[in-house]
């Protein structure tokens, strides 16, 4: 790098554009601008597709692993269960049942416990009524404490005494001054700092209670009496050695008296209380299910959708008499292939005829092909029902012709045959149209040339014409196959028991059992299978080899 090489560097260096920037960056800028402009043009459509198509699908698929409902509804219990040895024979400790009491009490006030019950009932039969029943009884469970505090001193009966004890002095003044007939907002409860350190659990429960009264029920906190839940928390705080002697705030005398008496209070063994409500609370199954489904995300739905179940010892196959989904997946794929095959068989000659007839006749025939498109899907499917049933048109004709005996009429519907016939008919246009548009572009001169060179009709068709029509078959097959994999109305109506698809179960779980997690997992698997097949198709046939025309 000496000065003598300086003139060369100008030539070797980056090329400059007219404005003095390097050509590369100038080109990049121009490209970026045009890309941006292109993006702006498609932006409305892109945003539309993202918002109305991709986002809902992603949200729905996400439900297949989502499981926050358990830890959201029972936060304390799931935390307590983290240390429990679920593989052993012992039930959780009584303290876990006490946390369960708090969680269910709070969930019951918010009416969330039954929702969790329905969720867990998908995994263990009977949890639904277990939670409903527990919700009804949970208010009575801790009442022993409330009664004893109230018997000790009438002070504990009054909501205003509680507010004075638990609340911050400034907040209390504002609350008492607040007029609940006025339009101003209720002063939000603020816990007193001293009591929060002295009675942490009571303060926590009271804050939850105050928040519920003020924000969910929108009642005047000054006029409400606290929940039974708070009394049991106070008892726990007092018996675990809270140093109330040094406390000098409002209600100090009553609190100290209560602390002295609390040790002799009758206590509730929550485990027994829960077992009194329903003996299922004493069964390991319930607790193991709770523990298995404690995490925020679960593989349970996916395991369910391949006939397995999530247990405390890991995934296990379900019993033979509960296995159904794998069978339905295989059946869906197999029948979709059969339907695609029969569409090719029936559609190819029609496409050929349409492409090679004079335009006038071809147009007329084209209308016949399109006609079913203009008829409602349900009407077409129901028409097949009338045609194919045992007292239907087809069977009547066959009997009249003497082909089958009157007492052995063919079963053409409510089985696989019915589904295949009806769906082949419904999906046929999706095969004919791509075939037709590809065949239309094959010059007839090629076949003529082959024949003039000595090929037989068959050779000319098979070696010259057919290979050129393969892209049409490819496009039609992909369309028909993917459409039929997701069909459910037609199989539901004509499929009986052996002709239904996996989509019928998905529909059932979406609209009847409300098990959207399982439906999402089944849908995700179906999507993955379709994408996998598409990928395989691309590798074997090549996606370039698919044409919808031209």
């Amino acid at each position, binding site marked *: 790098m000496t000065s003598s090489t300086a003139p060369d560097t100008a030539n070797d260096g980056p090329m400059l554009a007219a404005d003095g920037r390097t050509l590369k960056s100038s080109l990049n800028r121009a490209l970026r601008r045009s890309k941006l402009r292109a993006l702006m043009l498609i932006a409305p459509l892109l945003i539309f597709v993202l918002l109305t198509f991709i986002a809902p699908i992603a949200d729905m698929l996400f439900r297949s692993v989502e499981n926050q409902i358990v830890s959201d509804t029972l936060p304390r219990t799931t935390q307590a269960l983290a240390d429990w040895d679920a593989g052993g024979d012992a039930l959780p400790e009584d303290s876990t049942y006490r946390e369960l009491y708090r969680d269910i009490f709070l969930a019951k006030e918010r*009416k*969330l416990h*039954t*929702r969790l*019950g*329905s969720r867990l*009932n*998908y995994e263990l*039969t*009977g*949890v*639904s*009524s277990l939670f*409903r029943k527990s919700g009804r009884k949970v208010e009575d469970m801790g009442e022993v404490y409330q009664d004893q505090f109230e018997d000790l001193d009438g002070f504990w009966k009054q909501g205003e005494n509680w507010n004075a004890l638990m609340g911050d002095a400034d907040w209390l003044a504002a609350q008492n001054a607040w007029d609940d007939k006025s339009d101003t907002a209720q002063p939000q409860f603020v816990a007193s700092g001293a009591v929060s350190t002295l009675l942490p659990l009571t303060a926590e429960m009271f804050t939850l209670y105050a928040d519920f009264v003020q924000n969910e029920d929108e009642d005047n906190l000054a006029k409400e009496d606290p929940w039974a839940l708070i009394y049991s928390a106070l008892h726990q705080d007092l018996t675990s050695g809270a140093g109330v002697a040094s406390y000098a705030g409002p209600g100090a005398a009553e609190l100290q008296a209560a602390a002295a008496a609390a040790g002799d209070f009758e206590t509730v063994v929550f485990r027994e209380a829960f077992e009194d409500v329903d003996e299922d609370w004493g069964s390991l199954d319930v607790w193991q299910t709770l523990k298995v489904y404690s995490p925020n995300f679960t593989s349970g739905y996916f395991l369910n959708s391949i006939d397995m179940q999530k247990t405390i010892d890991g995934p296990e196959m379900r019993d033979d*008499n*509960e*296995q*159904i989904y794998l*069978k*339905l997946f295989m059946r869906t794929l197999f029948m979709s292939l059969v339907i695609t095959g029969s569409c090719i068989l029936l559609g190819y000659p029609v496409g050929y005829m349409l492409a090679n007839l004079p335009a006038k006749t071809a147009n007329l025939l084209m209308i016949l092909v399109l006609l079913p498109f203009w008829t409602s899907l349900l009407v077409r499917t129901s028409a097949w029902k009338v045609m194919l*049933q*045992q*007292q*239907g048109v087809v069977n009547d004709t066959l009997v009249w012709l003497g082909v089958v005996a009157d007492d052995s009429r063919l079963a053409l519907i*409510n089985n696989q045959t019915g589904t295949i016939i009806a769906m082949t008919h419904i999906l046929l246009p999706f095969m004919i149209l791509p075939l037709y548009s590809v065949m239309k572009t094959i010059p007839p001169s090629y076949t003529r040339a082959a024949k003039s060179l000595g090929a037989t009709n068959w050779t000319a068709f098979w070696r010259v014409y057919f290979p050129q029509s393969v892209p049409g078959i490819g496009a039609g097959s992909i369309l028909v196959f993917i459409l039929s994999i997701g069909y459910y109305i037609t199989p*539901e109506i004509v499929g*009986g*028991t*052996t002709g*239904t698809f996996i989509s019928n*179960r998905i529909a059932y779980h*979406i*609209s*009847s*059992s*409300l*098990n959207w997690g399982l439906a999402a997992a089944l849908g995700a698997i179906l999507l993955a299978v379709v994408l996998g097949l598409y990928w395989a198709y691309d590798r074997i046939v090549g996606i370039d080899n698919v044409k919808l025309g031209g």
Partner: protein
Amino acid sequence: MKLAKTLMASTALTVAAGMVAADGHMANEMTIVSWGGAYSNSQQQAYHNPYMEKTGVTIINDESSAEAVAKLRAMNEAGNVTWDVVDVVAADAIRLCDEGLAMEIDADEQLAAAPDGTPASEDFGDLLVSDCFIPQIVYSTTFGYRTDMVGDTPPTSVCAVFDTEAYPGKRALEKRPINNMEWALLCDGVAKDDVYDVLETEEGQQQALDKLATIKDDVIWWSAGADTPQLLADGEVVMGSTYNGRLFSVIEEQKQPVAMLWDAQVFDLDGWIIPTGLSDERKARALDYIMFATDTQRLADQAKYISYGPARASSAPLVGQHADLGIDMAPHMPTDPENAKNTFLYNYEFWADYRDDIDAKFQAWLAQ
């Protein structure tokens, strides 16, 4: 520029139209969801028309009851509930209540008392199966048979369904375990009072499926209430289960050679719920409608158009004649003493717990 102007104009129009629609909804319209067909028609005649005349409210009908639970859940998640009153079966009402999607109702405060002053909670009695549910009708799922296909000895017992020797031919059963499992056990020698105790056990469930397996090849499984009437009318099946109102219309309106087999009919309830998440104004209107539509006279009026029994005890004596056919409706009610000699009441609690489990087994059994 022209394009931009057109775009702006059409946007403005759309927004304006949207606001008008939204306003309309707020002002004096309510959307009532029901099942469609003859059933919706009976509600239109008995409830909607008189209510619209009385109050000037416009009622918009939506026939989505079959998917009501799923749709309400979706609406609730989206925070935009567009329905005001929804007609659902009791089992769905219980689920909606469990999920917090339906409002709790205080029967004595929010429903009309009987004419003699009996409070609503007593008038409806045991039929108030959920805090959110306002019963409207009692219907039953029962069997109908072709009178011309059963020979000289028409069936009198539900067990004829399982007797393919005496009554050859196909049967139509609903493609779900509910009701079928009960009938199977009943005809397999289980006493009526023990049916649900047996069905709670794995062995009992297998016993019911085994009994159903004896006729599996002879069954056409239906999923829409209209299937069985069609199959009966076409002679595809010799007998089939469906809702009693559907059979009434096959027998009395279409005059088909079909008769009712009331034995072991399963009572079920259908009624209203009000979704949660309505504005105060819409909630007030929905409650006002419910108060009107479930009073004693209105429930009795509905029986003029369809053969379902009114849910109030006080309505029963007021049931009259069919509006078009002019026949007495009382003998066609599932609750008529002559028809109700041997009945089941849908066991809501049992099926809420066991539905998922037994359905999985039932579907796996069907697919075998």
